[in-house]
């Protein structure tokens, strides 16, 4: 288990590479901490905005002697943004208990360290088995790195937007089935 605060001094000094290393490990924890907000706020937008704010305010976050002070701060920023969005959209009530449990896990230092190389090889092997069009849709989104809209990616492949999205769904489901066939356990929701 990792204490991601090892990256905090460099992040506070403005090192974007250090922030990248921190984000690589922190993002799954932050995303899970927002799970209970999924029906009331766009968690992807909340998460990106929270990460930008963490970068901006990291120099003012003080260590408190417990692991993952910056990650705990990020969980709180994410939660407050999600609550703000939920109020703005006047969406449903929230499961506060789930958020508290996520914060407890982070405080205990339960942060996994980086991707599993065996998982990477399994995904690569399954990706190589995809049919042409789903593979192309997957490659476009991965190559875009969240910087280009799907409309543009679809146009690049000569597809209508809905066709592009259907191919991406197909790629995701085929990958999930292939990975399960190779004994890789996936979260039930991803199938």
């Amino acid at each position, binding site marked *: 288990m990792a204490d991601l605060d090892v990256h905090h001094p460099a992040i506070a000094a*403005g090192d*974007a590479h250090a*922030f*990248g290393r921190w*984000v*690589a*490990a922190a*993002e*799954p924890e932050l*995303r*899970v901490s*927002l*799970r209970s907000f*999924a*029906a*009331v*706020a*766009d*968690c*992807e*937008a*909340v*998460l*990106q*905005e929270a*990460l*930008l704010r963490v*970068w901006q305010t990291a120099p003012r976050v003080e260590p408190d002697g417990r692991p993952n002070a910056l990650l705990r701060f990020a969980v709180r920023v994410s939660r407050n943004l999600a609550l703000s*969005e939920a109020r703005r*959209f006047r969406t*449903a009530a929230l499961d506060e208990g789930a958020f508290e449990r996520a914060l407890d896990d982070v405080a205990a230092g339960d942060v996994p360290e*980086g*991707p*599993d190389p065996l*998982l*990477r090889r399994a*995904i*690569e092997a399954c*990706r190589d088995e995809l049919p042409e069009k789903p593979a192309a849709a997957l490659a476009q*989104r*991965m190559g*875009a*790195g*969240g*910087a*280009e*809209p*799907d409309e543009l990616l679809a146009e690049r492949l000569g597809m209508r*937007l*809905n066709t592009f*999205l*259907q191919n991406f*769904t197909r790629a*995701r489901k085929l*990958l*999930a089935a292939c990975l399960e066939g190779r004994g890789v356990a*996936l*979260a039930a*929701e*991803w199938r």
Partner: protein
Amino acid sequence: MSDDDEALIEAVAGAYRERGPRGEVRSHPAWHDLDAAGREAAWAAAAGSRAMEAALDPQGLSSTARAVLARIRRAG
């Protein structure tokens, strides 16, 4: 679930988000067209996709992470 619902879910599960006039990250327009079950499904699809992207990336970065880092570097 209809094909239209699946397309909305997949759209929301992507990492691209528009920026507002003050630079804030905006919710995906399709998110507002989903019901609660669809929004939960989009969250799960995004979580799975980001895990896969990070596993394949040499630096362990998902498209969410890359979008944020690109924004930081542009601002710097």
